[in-house]
Structures are given as structure tokens and as C-alpha cells.
């Protein structure tokens, strides 16, 4: 393997005299300096040729432009920054081994492989969101937490009461998570809902160009169940997946900074 090259797309070793990466098909002969730019829209085949009923992941590159796509022809397909077949080596928000796309009974599932930043899926209907659940709206990573029950003043072990700011009851709060993990702002709901958008809502992100005027709404029911609803936004509302989740044709999934569309023939 003297003089072997490294494929810029998937990281595989490519023999020196090969013009294309045998694994992912990227041109590696050096004549195309486009290897660093976004590959043109094309379909990569893993294993065998496209099989009917099998899925394809299409990388969305902004403004609806489709980028690279990955044919999911095996049984399991690891995606990550440095492991697996679907590699995004330049995405710092991608864990080395991030997600796994799995077939079970001819159905496609996605599973978080213990990634730091998780997998987010665009919601199509009002969706239940758990306590501490994270969701993505435009550039905003937000977290919702129900307020803990008010137990009233509780003295400590020495029978001393804790002094706190006056109580202003709120059923849930919305936490903005900044890149790096810090909390930005925390907004406490005034009623049973929080509307989020660019203007005219309870919480407005004026300068986030990816957020629609009225984008999404959180609601909490009397029994504390919280629901996230997209209000017909352009770019969608994405909820972080907990368990292994089935994917359907047309689903959108965020891994790291990569937005992927699922196509099932």
C-alpha cells in the first residue's frame, strides 16, 4: 500500500493507482480539486446496487439543494465523524460513532449510538416531549422542563428556611442551550403554552433567519404532559430522539450539523 491515499470523503485507504475510492466512489486522482467542496448530487451505493424497498439518505445542503446521498443497502449503517460508512469527518458536532441506521423486518430504524448531541427528527404531528426534552428550531437548541411541584417552604436540617425570590408560579420553562452546553436564557411560561417564533410570540428569536414568524408551540396539560407542535414553519421543528425510532419516507433527521432526508423507494 505504498503511496496509498486517504479518501477525503470516507477516510478509507485508496491504493495509489486508483482514481476512485473503492468504498465510497469519491474521485481521488487529484485531477479534480473539488474533493474538498461539496460533492455534487449523486447517489453512493453500498454493497449491492439499489434494492427496492431499501432506503436512501440524502444530505440536504441548504436552500433545498441536495448533496451526497447514501444508499442503505446493508443491515446496519453506522454514521459518525470517524467510524462507520457514513462519515462526516469535518463535523465537530458529530460523535466519532454517532448513529446507526438499521433494518428490521424491512423497516428502517435509527438508533443513537451514545452520541453527545443526539439525533433529531422533524415532527409532522403534535408530538409528546418528555421532561428535559430537547428540540431544534432554526439555530436554536431549546429544552423544556416542567416546573417541579411547589412543596412550599422547606426548612433545612437546622430548621432554617431558604430565602428565595417571590414565587411566581409557572408550569414549565424553556431553556436555551448554547453551543458548548451553557444555558443562555430561561423563559417561564405564563400559562399553559409557550409560542416560539421570530416575532409576536411568547419567545422571539428576532435574528434567527431559519425561524418562521410563528414557528412552534409547547403546551402542557393539566396532568403535566407536554406536547410540541410545529405551526407550519418553513424549516421545521426537530425533536431529539430517545429510543430507537422508525423512519418513514420523507422524514428529516439531524445528525450533528447534517440534515438528512430519508427516501424509501
Amino acid at each position, binding site marked *: 500500500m505504498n503511496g496509498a491515499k486517504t479518501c477525503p470523503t470516507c477516510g478509507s485507504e485508496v491504493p495509489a493507482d486508483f482514481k476512485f475510492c473503492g468504498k465510497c466512489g469519491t474521485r481521488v486522482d487529484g485531477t479534480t480539486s473539488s474533493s474538498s467542496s461539496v460533492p455534487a448530487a449523486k447517489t453512493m451505493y453500498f454493497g449491492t446496487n439499489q434494492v427496492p424497498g431499501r432506503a436512501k439518505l440524502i444530505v440536504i445542503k441548504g436552500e433545498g439543494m441536495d448533496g451526497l446521498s447514501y444508499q442503505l443497502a446493508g443491515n446496519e449503517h453506522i454514521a459518525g465523524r470517524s467510524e462507520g460508512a457514513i462519515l462526516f469527518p469535518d463535523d465537530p458536532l458529530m460523535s466519532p460513532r454517532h448513529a446507526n441506521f438499521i433494518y428490521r423486518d424491512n423497516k428502517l430504524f435509527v438508533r443513537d449510538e451514545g452520541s453527545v448531541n443526539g439525533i433529531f427528527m422533524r415532527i409532522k404531528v403534535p408530538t409528546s416531549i418528555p421532561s428535559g426534552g430537547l428540540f431544534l428550531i432554526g439555530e436554536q437548541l431549546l429544552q423544556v422542563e416542567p416546573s417541579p411541584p411547589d412543596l412550599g417552604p422547606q426548612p433545612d436540617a437546622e430548621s432554617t428556611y431558604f430565602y428565595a425570590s417571590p414565587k411566581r408560579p409557572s408550569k414549565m420553562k424553556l431553556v436555551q442551550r448554547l453551543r458548548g452546553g451553557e444555558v*443562555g*436564557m430561561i423563559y417561564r411560561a405564563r400559562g399553559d403554552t409557550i409560542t416560539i417564533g421570530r416575532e409576536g410570540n411568547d419567545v422571539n428569536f428576532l435574528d434567527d433567519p431559519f425561524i418562521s414568524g410563528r414557528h412552534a408551540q409547547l403546551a402542557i396539560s393539566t396532568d403535566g404532559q407536554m406536547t410540541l407542535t410545529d405551526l407550519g414553519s418553513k424549516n421545521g421543528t426537530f425533536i431529539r430522539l430517545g429510543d430507537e425510532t422508525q423512519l418513514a419516507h420523507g422524514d428529516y433527521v439531524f445528525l450533528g450539523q447534517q440534515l438528512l432526508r430519508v427516501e424509501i423507494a
Partner: protein
Amino acid sequence: MLPTLKGDPVITCSRCGKENQDHYKFCLGCGNEIKPAPKPATREPAPLETARTILPPEAKPVSGSLGNEPTPLPTLSPPAAGKAKGGIPWNDSPKMPITPSNGGGVASGMLGAVTPPPLTPGSTDPGNWAAPRPMPTTPQAQPASAPTPSPAVVASAPAAVEGTVCPNCGRMVSPGFAFCGACGTRMNVAAAAPSPRTMYMSGPTATPVPRGRIVLIRPDGSEGGAHPLHDGENLVGRSQGSLFEGDLYLSPRHAEFQLGPQGLVVKDLRSLNGVFAKISGEEPLESGDVIRIGQELLRFEIIAPPTALEDGTEVAGTPNPGFWGRLSVVVGRDVDGSAFPLFGDAIVMGRERGDILFPEDGYVSGTHARISLRDGRVYLADVGSSNGTFLRVRGERTLPSGSFILMGQQLFRAEYK
């Protein structure tokens, strides 16, 4: 803090209820002569810890001696939420019309926040100071119509009745009383019946005149009782000194005041609620510092720039639009309410004007305080508020004479020569 050793028979004072050892001739609580009680077994069998919480302050003022109304006594029942808040119209209106924004949206967002309707007249900027908390009191103890919350403490009412000032603690003692009801100091050596047994109490001649004192400042600005400050260490807490006894927001051992040649240094003894000093001028802030303005308890934290994890992954999130700090409203022990990002050169807090608004807090001035960033350091300053801006003492702090301090639910002024 047990009044008696275990197993010792006790005599409960018929006047003030304090338990005294059976060889005492005079009640340690009120100075009343103790008649040998035939039934010392009437003592409540309740567990002591519980009893301590339920019981009124041991140095319950003798009727009339302090010119005091029967004080609302702390009970185990939790403070009635919403009660005894004085004239502050708490409601569920928005705490702050927050419009968080990204980057340059600062101006149109938080700075442009709309101020909710004004508070009812009379509820704003009351007097000198006012932020006593509703104590865990019985609801009827404090009339809801009171214009300002009255601190439910022992020494708060004016000493309207004639009497003598205790040389030790400064409290008023009724004429004819041989002992100070608050601290037990003998008031008049000649008048006190000599006891056949030795009483280990310091008389006025044995007590050096205290060089300083901690004066209670009532909500209306007048002075309440005082706690003496002697040279050396002076311990203050719920179980240290009658001025503090009724305040369940004080730890039993709350703070230590060290009076030395260099002045007065207060040291927080890891109390639950801390000691807050009123600031003058600009005060450097550190991440984790806790601030009091009006009734708001706020925690300042620095927002650190993101760093990658060990495996090179960065934690995803909203791109930071320039937030360098965060101010969180503390609504309970380890519970935060709203949090406001800090950005730009300075952020102003106030009830009506500024970037962070507390429209419901009548003790916050229209514009109250400012947090600014300069040369990589963060500073807190009061901007002419009525009630002042207070910073929780980290470890210890030197207090010039005349300093205002918040401990528990009361405001004090420390004075010394």
C-alpha cells in the same frame, strides 16, 4: 442549645414559659422569680428539634416591657404563600416580556421590552427598606392590608413603654424587672435579691461597654433593637442573640462579626441564606455571586466559551450571539426561575426601565442596578435605587461603620467607634 441537661428537672417560668433549672431563683428568660414548681413533669414530650421550631422565641418579650404587640410566632406550618406580602400586587403577569434575540437583536429584543402596567400607588419604593419575607406565620398574624410587611420578629415594635435600657443588649426592660428579658443581664444590682447561690451572670460592672452594635432597621426606616458588638468575635445567628431569635431565615450560627483595630469584618459561617452587604460604588462580580435587589434573589454566572470534549466533539447548541454572562432568578433552593443573558457593555435592571425588568417587585426601583463588562471584568453598581443593591458576602468582608447588611429577613446597620 438545650436549656437543661438531660434528666435535670426543669421549672417552666409561669410568666414567659422558659425552662429553667430547678435551682434557679429567677427566670433566665424574664427575670421573674421562680417558685418551685410542683409539677415539672408538665414538660412537653415533643422531640426537641421539632419543639424548637414550633416554640416561640425563648426570650419572648414580657407583655408590655418592649411595647410590643403579641408577635406573630413562627409555626411549623409553611409560610402562607401570597400572604403578608404587603401592598405588592403579585400576580401571574409576565415577569418580563422577554424577547431573546440573536446577536444584534439586543436592541430590538430585550431593550425594547414592553413594561407591564404600573403597580398600584403606594406600593412602589416604600420607605427606606422593605423586603422582609413572609415568615412562616399563621395567616391571621399579619393583616393582609398592611401597607408594608411587618417583620415578624421580636424586637421590631417601638419601645413605647417606659423602662430601662439593658446595658448589655440595648433592649428596653420594664421598670421593676431585675433582669433583662432578652439577655438575662441583671438590671440593678441593688434591687436584685441576692441569691444564696452563685449566679453566673455578668452584671453591668463586669461587662465592658460594647464598642459597636448591630441595629435593626425597620421597614419604615426607624431603628429597632440592637445587638452589641464587643471587641473580638461576635457570633450572630438564630440561636445567638435575641435580636435574631425569631427569624427562621437565619441559621442558628449564621455569621461572625469580628471587631478589631482595623474595623469590623463579617464572616459568613456557611449559613443557608448568607449575609448581604449593601454596595456603594462599583463592585467586582465573580461567577456564582448572589445579588439581592428588592425581593429578588439573583445569581450571576459567567458564560464560558465552548470547548470541545475529549473525543473532539463539541456540544451542540444555539450559536452564542455574544452572551458573556447570565443572571438567574433564584426561586428556591437549587431551583432557578427565569434566566437573563448578559451581553453588550452593560445591562440595567429595574422595575420599569432597563434590560431586565422586575415589574412585580415594588421594592425594586424604576432603574435599580447595573452589571457591566469592562476590560474583561464584570462589575455591579447601584444606579440610585431607593433600597440599595446587596451582594452576598463571599467568605468575609470588611464593613465600614454605617454599613447596611441583610441577614435573614431583616436589614441591619453595623456601627462601631
